Structure formats: C-alpha cells, structure tokens
C-alpha cells in the first residue's frame, strides 16, 4: 500500500501553481517580462542560479519539487524520483539542432546538449535535494493513471518515498504535477496512491 503525502502542480493556462490546497496565481503583470516558469521562480524568490541554465523541462521538474521540499523526510537515502512526460526533451533538442544546422555557423552548444536527455531533469532535483534513491524518466504517449501508479509503486518496492510526476503541453501551455508518495504516511488522512485518486486529483487541478 502507498499513500499521497502531498502533491504540487503547475497549470499555465490558469496561471496557477502550488501544492495541495495552497494554490498561487500569477497576475498578468508578473508574467510580462518572463516566461511562466521563470515568473514562478521570481514570484517565490528562489535563490538557485543554476535554474537559469536549465532547459524548460528541468525548470518544470525543479519547480514542482520546490513546492514539495518542505514535505520531504530528513533522511533522503530512501527517496527516489520518477518523472514522465509525452515530449521527452523536445525543447532542448530543437534548440541544440539550431546550433548545428548551419554548416557555416556550426557551433554545437555543450550547455544545451546536456539537456537533450530528459532524465537530466530528475538528476537536477536529486542534486538539489540530496535524493539518494532511484531516479528514472519515462516517455509515454499520454497520461494513464493506471500505468503511472504501477510504475511508481514498482519504484517504491526498493525505497520509502518517491517524488513522481507527469508533464504535458495542452494548447502550447504546460500542465504538470508531482506527488510525494510514501509507504508509511506521516500525516493522518493521507489518500491512498491509486489510479482512482490520482485521476481525481489530476482532473480537479485542471478544472480549477
């Protein structure tokens, strides 16, 4: 049996982000100068300069995990991360391709190249929060609560906590979420981590 300790989300179409019942929304003014993810970073006054070097996906996974950092256990040896999406590292792939497409201006960018593997994003979170458990990244055609729960529960066989998330574009706007799932719930009334509850939360977030 596994339980949802907490979850975080980013919904660009509604300009909202947050965790559990704690939702923030950004005003038009706050998103004028920066893209949506950078606007969240600035709104929350995070101080992690490496953020600006990350690609879109890594920024996305980083921000989801930041929302949950206060709920992580002190001992991170048994905390893993599983993330899934349906676009892999597409944004970084396109950017990198631009640095090598012109034979007369051929300067492959090392810093973009490192992000052409989607699992760099989960690695960034492991470094940031000192997670020592398993880290994996899956690329699926579409979100399936059943597959999501099965994969995360498999990962929980070998560790006590897993940060697990999904990200997708809908009408060119990012929708993503992350659960902190555990074998042994710390708080009372934790919902079971099963396909029904995941689907319920998933649908609730996108409605609001």
């Amino acid at each position, binding site marked *: 049996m596994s339980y949802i300790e907490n979850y975080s989300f980013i919904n660009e179409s509604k300009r909202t982000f947050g965790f559990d019942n704690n939702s923030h929304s950004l005003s038009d003014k706050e998103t004028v100068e920066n893209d949506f993810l*950078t606007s969240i970073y600035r709104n929350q006054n995070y101080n992690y*300069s490496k953020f600006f*070097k990350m690609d879109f996906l890594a920024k996305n996974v980083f921000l989801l995990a930041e929302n949950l950092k206060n709920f992580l256990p002190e001992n991170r040896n048994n905390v893993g991360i599983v993330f899934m999406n349906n676009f892999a590292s597409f944004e970084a792939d396109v950017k990198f391709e631009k640095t090598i497409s012109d034979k007369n201006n051929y*300067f*492959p960018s*090392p*810093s973009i190249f*490192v992000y052409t593997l989607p699992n760099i994003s989960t690695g960034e979170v492991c470094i940031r929060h000192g997670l020592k458990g398993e880290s994996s990244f899956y690329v699926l055609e579409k979100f399936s609560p059943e597959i999501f729960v099965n994969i995360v529960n498999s990962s929980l066989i070998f560790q006590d906590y897993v940060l697990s998330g999904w990200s997708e574009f809908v009408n060119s706007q990012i929708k993503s979420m992350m659960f902190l799932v555990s074998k042994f719930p710390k708080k009372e009334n934790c919902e079971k981590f099963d396909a029904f509850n995941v689907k319920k939360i998933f649908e609730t977030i996108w409605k609001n």
Partner: protein
Amino acid sequence: MEELILKLKNQIIDTLNLDDKKPEDIGDDEPLFGDGLGLDSIDALELIVLMEKNYGIKLKDASEGKKIFVSVRVMADYINKNRLK
C-alpha cells in the same frame, strides 16, 4: 581593453544564461571558477565555443582553458593577443 572586458562580460552572461547577473556584478579580476562566479565544467566548454565563435580563437588543447579562463581580464588579454576576427 576596458571596452572588450565589458563586451566579454555581456557575452558571458548571455552565453552562460547568468540571468541573475549584470556586468557590474562580475569583477574584472574575479575568479570565473570556484569561489568567484562559480562556473562549472560545462560552462568551460561553452567559453571555448564563445572564443571560437566570436573571436576565431580555436584552442588546440582544452586544458589551455585553465590558464585563460582565470578571470575576465585574463581572458580579454588573451583574446586581444590572439583574435582572428
């Protein structure tokens, strides 16, 4: 030289995505790696590309970078003496 130092600072900020830095935040003699600007090994590779792309300087040996990427001033001095464009 001062003009090149300022240009180089802007190029470093732009190339390395140091969005939270301004040219005046980077000291002319401040170490680029370690305790100074805190760049990493991927940044070093990106600086090698920057030198080639903007100044036509191709480092024959990547380890040369250790002597060149000490600070912005040392970099600017090397560029002044070796630039092809």
